[in-house]
């Protein structure tokens, strides 16, 4: 149980770091010019990737640990399609 708790804590900690990053990014986006935010975004690309990777890794470790104790675990992998912006759907437009 202690091991599970530790892994859960690691997930929460990683998600907290991501949440803090998002708060900072959103705050900066509100006050920065478009050009300044683009530069800030470029300057923090590695940080963003590292933080998102850490969230995924922590979640995977917890999942793998939990799955080791579950029988017949089978992840449902569902492919998400590619949406073509030019697609037209037959229907009645409500706004003409």
């Amino acid at each position, binding site marked *: 149980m202690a091991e599970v708790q530790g892994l859960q804590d690691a997930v929460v900690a990683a998600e907290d770091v*991501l949440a803090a*990053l*998002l*708060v900072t*990014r*959103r705050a900066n*986006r509100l006050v920065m010019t*478009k050009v300044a*935010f*683009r530069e*800030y*975004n470029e300057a*923090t*690309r*590695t*940080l*963003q*990737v590292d*933080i*998102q990777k850490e969230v*995924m890794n922590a*979640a*995977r470790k*917890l*999942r793998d640990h*939990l*799955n080791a104790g*579950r029988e017949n*675990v*089978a*992840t*449902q*992998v*569902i*492919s*998400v*399609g*590619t*949406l*073509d*912006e*030019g*697609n037209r*759907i*037959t*229907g*009645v*437009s*409500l*706004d003409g």
Partner: protein
Amino acid sequence: MGDVALNDSKGRLAEIIDDGADLIVVPMSLIEADATFQDGYVSVFLAGGGNGILDAAGNTEQTGSTWARKVHTNANITSVVDDSANLWRIILDNDDIWTAVASSNDVVSLVIAEDTGSDATRRVIGSWIFAVTTDGNDVQANYDQTNGIWTAA
């Protein structure tokens, strides 16, 4: 039901991503018919003032069991011109995984929006088919790493 873009958001995703925005993925247990979804709302945002996408009776976010929204930060989104097909593509670099989703928490689609911190300003891009009958196992959204989630000519 198909993959359907909000008409108001067509042509905007390129600018949104190139300006450094993040995207948020919202699991949905109920989604309206394509023709209604694509242009049937007063607001193009997730929620607010009773006019947003989630405010409509025909759209319901799935929050049961371990379902949760997933944020993809800008650096984890590839925005690329595909010269071979004369297309521009948006690719989500990382799959999303929901662990041990209990039965009777089904989803039918994923709505993807620009992430701004508030549903009142989260601009919805579209809805992607994601039909899952949950059974206690993990669920993984597998994003196409070649064609992406979005193309524009």
